[in-house]
């Protein structure tokens, strides 16, 4: 059964005010196009969650969509501060925002517990740190066995209302091939109630079935499939286009003030109707510079049985 939707329809059906929304992708495959559609539609009071908030969260915060942020590393990766995030936390600009903070392993373990249907996950972190004093969701339990440390930290399962995840390609039923850095995308898809899958291209089911080991997200957990080429720019899609590092460096200047961030949103989000118009507005030369060379994986033989 096809689950194909246009981005605007998928977002308006999947994301409601006040919900907890996970944005998948660790540096790679960040769902920028979906985030921009949320900004255009103006969903409010969202708890936005991802390991690395990245520029998309600066944009969601500046647009007033987020009331809470759950994260594990709030920086502009490889560049420095995430300025919109800092303004919200340090100065309450444009408004106060609640935060809930973990380390990477803590947040990813929460998703994995959600995906597994367990109430919590134990991990060898946090003991000796200040997290236990500042996040009441991080607790310790006694080790019920003789081997190993006497006490372990635990984090509660995370089952977001919605996960927005990206992959390189999927069939119309949402069976997705994913390669390169997969981060926490698979855990997020299995943990969430509703999954919006945005792909570079929708392909025939035979393409997916030819290489089942590469199917990391099964269509059985996917609710909406959206085809959105370049939907991760300025993040990247392995084998399709490179990370636009210039854009990350430029963001450091664009995000200097709330006003300059709003100006950017006016120009690049509110003034364009969809991702296609965003791409038309970008200099084509920019995309040419982001094209990688080819590096085909050697074909495997699944055998015909």
């Amino acid at each position: 059964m096809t689950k194909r939707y246009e981005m605007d329809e998928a977002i308006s059906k999947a994301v409601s005010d006040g919900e907890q929304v996970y944005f998948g992708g660790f540096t790679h495959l960040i769902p920028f196009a979906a985030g921009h559609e949320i900004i255009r539609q103006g969903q409010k009071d969202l708890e936005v969650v991802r390991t690395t908030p990245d520029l998309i969260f600066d944009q969601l915060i500046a647009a007033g969509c987020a009331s809470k942020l759950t994260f594990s590393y709030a920086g502009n990766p490889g560049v420095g501060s995430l300025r919109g995030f800092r303004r919200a936390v340090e100065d309450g600009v444009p408004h106060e925002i609640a935060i809930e903070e973990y380390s990477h392993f803590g947040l990813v373990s929460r998703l994995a517990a959600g995906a597994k249907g367990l109430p919590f996950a134990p991990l060898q972190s946090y003991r000796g740190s200040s997290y236990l004093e500042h996040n009441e969701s991080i607790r310790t339990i006694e080790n019920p066995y003789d081997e190993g440390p006497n006490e372990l930290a635990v984090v509660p399962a995370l089952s977001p209302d919605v996960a927005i995840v990206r992959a390189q390609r999927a069939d119309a039923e949402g069976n997705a091939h994913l390669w390169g850095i997969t981060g926490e995308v698979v855990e997020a898809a299995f943990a969430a109630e509703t999954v919006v899958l945005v792909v570079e291209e929708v392909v025939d089911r035979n393409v997916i079935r030819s290489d089942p080991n590469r199917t990391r997200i099964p269509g059985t957990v996917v609710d909406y499939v959206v085809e959105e080429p370049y939907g991760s720019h300025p993040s990247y899609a392995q084998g399709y286009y490179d990370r636009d590092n210039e854009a990350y460096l430029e963001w450091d200047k664009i995000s200097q003030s709330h006003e300059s961030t709003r100006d950017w949103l006016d120009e690049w989000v509110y003034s364009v109707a969809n991702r296609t118009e965003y791409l038309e507005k970008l200099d084509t030369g920019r995309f040419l510079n982001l094209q990688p060379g080819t590096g085909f994986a050697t074909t495997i033989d699944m055998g015909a049985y």
Partner: protein
Amino acid sequence: MTDYTDTELMIVRAAKELEDGDITLVGVGVPNIACNLAKRTHAPDLEMIYESGTIGSNPSKLPLSIGDPVLATGARSVVPMIESFEYYLQAGRIDVGFLGGAQIDRWGSLNSTVIGDYEDPTVRLPGSGGACEIASNTHRTVVIMPHSQRRFPEEVDFVTSPGYVGGREGRKQLGLRGGPAAVITDKAVMGFDDDGEMIVESLHPNVTTAAVLDATGWDIQFAEDVAETTPPTDHEINLIRTELDPNGIYTGDSSG
């Protein structure tokens, strides 16, 4: 001999902390250059792992972030984050991790979370990322950061990455592996004594004991035989400038 910057000295000194065959968890920036320098000099079989899940990376160019595609292409393996943290890091399969931070205390605990009160911070820093796990689970960590009163307080505002909390014994009782092995700054190289307290092992050329005391927020100990840090060779500087960071993205100034 070629002039070198403080950052270049830190990179070269950090590279020496790596042994051939080590499995190392690399950070972006200065640690990444240090690892690639070691790989091109004394440690060709260094295995580089990034917390994004790329195992055995061999980047053809300098990555801006730890999730760049250049770290995945040609890697030994690429695994989901849950696997890199569970099977590799937590299970004890990583020898060395690199860390930095805004503050470090005398027991080697690092803060990369907030300056000031957690609930009402003066400066909100990025937070842990994988730093808390790297500090807790690798067999040794190497810290690289600038040396100043502000960054070396008696007590950090938030322990993001535990050092020898409660001494070496206390750390062990918490079930934590390893601990900080070296702290490399723009002034000196520090190790940790039998109790787990920081101790100055070598001073960089032209740096005095008084300058280190002045830049440290407690009465830091000095080893009896404090050495002078070996300066970088022309070959090492040349590799950094022509191959590892040709645009000077991370080494372009001396402030570290």
